[in-house]
């Protein structure tokens, strides 16, 4: 729908991140945890792409892999025209200023032995040649931008509340004028009252600095608030990717439908009439994913084809991608049993 005419800022194709499993006496390689298994997505300049999914579906791994905080198994990642998928870590280091990350746990992700000024200023020392005073000015500027009092500069992370710590993490991420920021569940560890503050801060900063976000979260209502487009992940794969309003209005993939039906409705009358899709069973282990569609073990609509053939992730409507056998390009509605029969015949 609103595909940008220019090339996307971040282009991920066929990204795979497998962690080897070693077992036995000799620690032989017995398999892989397929945390991220063949995902493709684009993030356009100045937009926010939400990445949602349940715990353990690989969304954080995907976020880290996109920034090459892992050595990826396969696939290609292009950020701002540079292919970083196989570049060595030392060259990558010089590209780090462009791409930053805000981490989930604001306590653990800050070095406990460094002051705020140290944490925020360290990337400046590494990547820019500023005098001591210029650096301090920049640190103060960043602290102002995220709403931290300047007098906090010489304090240690443990002296702050969760929301303040996350602000430190955001200031740190902004230090080098990044274009692209991966927000890895930046609000998951915060109180609800603080969540809104931090999300609003992220939105303000996006507007001011023209930032591009990959916003990872399991909070569907927060993603609805902040994201322009939303990708839904299940067991290491993206099952659906669509513009926000379209995804929330007409989810096509059965998993997305189930996920959205789980979001509580504030109106108790409507809530009592709403139909919930209750998924049964557990998520399969990413070390031993099912044959065929990853979702086939829990999908209410699963048929034989789902257990044999992995559905292709394809564009079913402009800007609306999904991976389900029962969704056809022509029908914009959820494919029910009729579509399933058609596909079988």
């Amino acid at each position, binding site marked *: 729908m609103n595909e940008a005419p220019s090339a996307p800022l971040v282009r991920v194709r066929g990204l795979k991140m497998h962690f080897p499993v070693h077992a036995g006496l000799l*620690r032989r390689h017995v398999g892989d945890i397929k945390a991220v298994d063949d995902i493709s997505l684009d993030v356009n300049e100045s937009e926010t792409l939400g990445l949602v999914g349940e715990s353990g579906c690989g969304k954080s791994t995907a976020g880290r892999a996109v920034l090459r*905080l892992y050595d990826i198994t396969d696939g290609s990642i292009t950020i701002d025209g540079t292919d970083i998928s196989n570049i060595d870590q030392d060259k990558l280091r010089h590209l780090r200023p462009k791409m*930053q*990350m805000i*981490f989930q*746990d604001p306590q653990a992700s800050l070095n406990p032995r460094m002051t705020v000024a140290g944490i925020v200023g*360290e990337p400046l020392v590494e990547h820019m040649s500023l005098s001591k005073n210029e650096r301090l000015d920049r640190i103060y500027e960043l602290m102002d931008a995220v709403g931290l009092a300047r007098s906090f500069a010489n304090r*240690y992370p443990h002296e702050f509340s969760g929301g303040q710590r996350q602000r430190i*993490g955001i200031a740190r991420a902004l230090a080098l004028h990044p274009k692209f920021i991966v927000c890895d569940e930046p609000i998951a560890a915060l109180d609800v009252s603080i969540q809104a503050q931090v999300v609003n801060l992220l939105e303000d900063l996006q507007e001011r600095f023209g930032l591009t976000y990959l916003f990872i979260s399991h909070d569907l209502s927060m993603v609805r608030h902040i994201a322009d487009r939303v990708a839904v992940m299940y067991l290491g794969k993206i099952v659906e990717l669509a513009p926000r309003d379209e995804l929330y209005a007409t989810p096509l993939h059965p998993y997305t439908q189930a996920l959205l039906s789980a979001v509580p409705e504030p109106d108790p009358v409507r809530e009592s009439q709403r139909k919930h899709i209750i998924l049964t069973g557990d998520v399969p282990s990413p070390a031993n994913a099912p044959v065929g569609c990853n979702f086939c073990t829990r999908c209410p609509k699963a048929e034989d084809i789902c257990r044999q053939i992995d559905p292709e992730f394809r564009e079913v409507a402009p800007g609306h991608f999904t991976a389900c056998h029962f969704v056809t390009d022509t029908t914009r509605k959820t494919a029910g049993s009729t579509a399933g029969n058609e596909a079988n015949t």
Partner: protein
Amino acid sequence: MLTYTIRRLLLAIPTLIAISLIIFLLLDLAPSDPTANLPLTIPPDVREKIRQSLGLGDPIYIRYLLWCKQFFVNEPLNMLEQWFGWDIGGDRLRVLSWQTRSPVVDLIVQRMPQTLWVVGMSYVVGVLIALPIGIISAYRQYSWFDQVGTFVSMVGFSVPTFFTGVLVIVIFSVWLGWFPSIYDTTHQVTDWQSFLFQIKQMIMPVAVLALFNAAQISRFMRASMLDNLNQDYVRTARAKGMRERTVVLVHVLRNSLIPVVTVIALGVPQIFGGAIITEQVFKVNGLGQLLIISIQGGDLPTVQTLTFIFAVLIILFNLVADVLYGVLDPRIRYD
């Protein structure tokens, strides 16, 4: 921090008094006889007179209080006199060794240098070896370096020094003849040649003890590094685009050193305690050896004084470790 330190020091006083009493009672209960090592030709009544002259006829509380007075009052006064050339006067009886009849503190002062040189050096060498090994082992976990390091530290940890000591003597002194098997404490370092000899005679005892110390500390270092390497802030540092060296040596190492430094500090009293067995094997007549011959000879004042000094050092370095923790880790505040 200062008030904390002072409070801890004040608390140490009753602790130490209790410790001194316990040591005294234990030694008194032990069935040792200071005259047992004397020739068998000495008749029993003479032996009894010797015991009486050593003060063993007095009740135990008199003997304990006497030791307390000698150690806590007379010895410090005596030290002040010696250091500042004062003359405080008064007839003061010092803590005398029953075996040598010389003041115990003088014996300790004589033997301290040997112990500090050999055992202290081995501790320094052990720490210097252990830290890099621990760091590299953790950074390259399960690599061949780590496996070899683990094996060597297990060996160093589990093979006692009386075995490794004798083994290196057999190999390097008997077979190869490179180093002297006996540590010559009368040796004076005056020129280059004698310095080389000093190094040569120190190598074996230092190496044996260093292996033992390094084994322990490298394990601590490795475990602490591994703890920190998986922390989120390390990923943050990488995401900042820091050099790998900065990530490991600044972010990870500084945080990992906190517990290791305290372990190292806690180990320092062992240096003063001397390595009894190793000193014995290499005939280094340091404090450890003094302690063992005093025990053998039933020399209660020496054993009492030495053991008490070790207790003081242990309490002191426990405090040092705690204070260091507070200095190094901003999350810990004492008040």
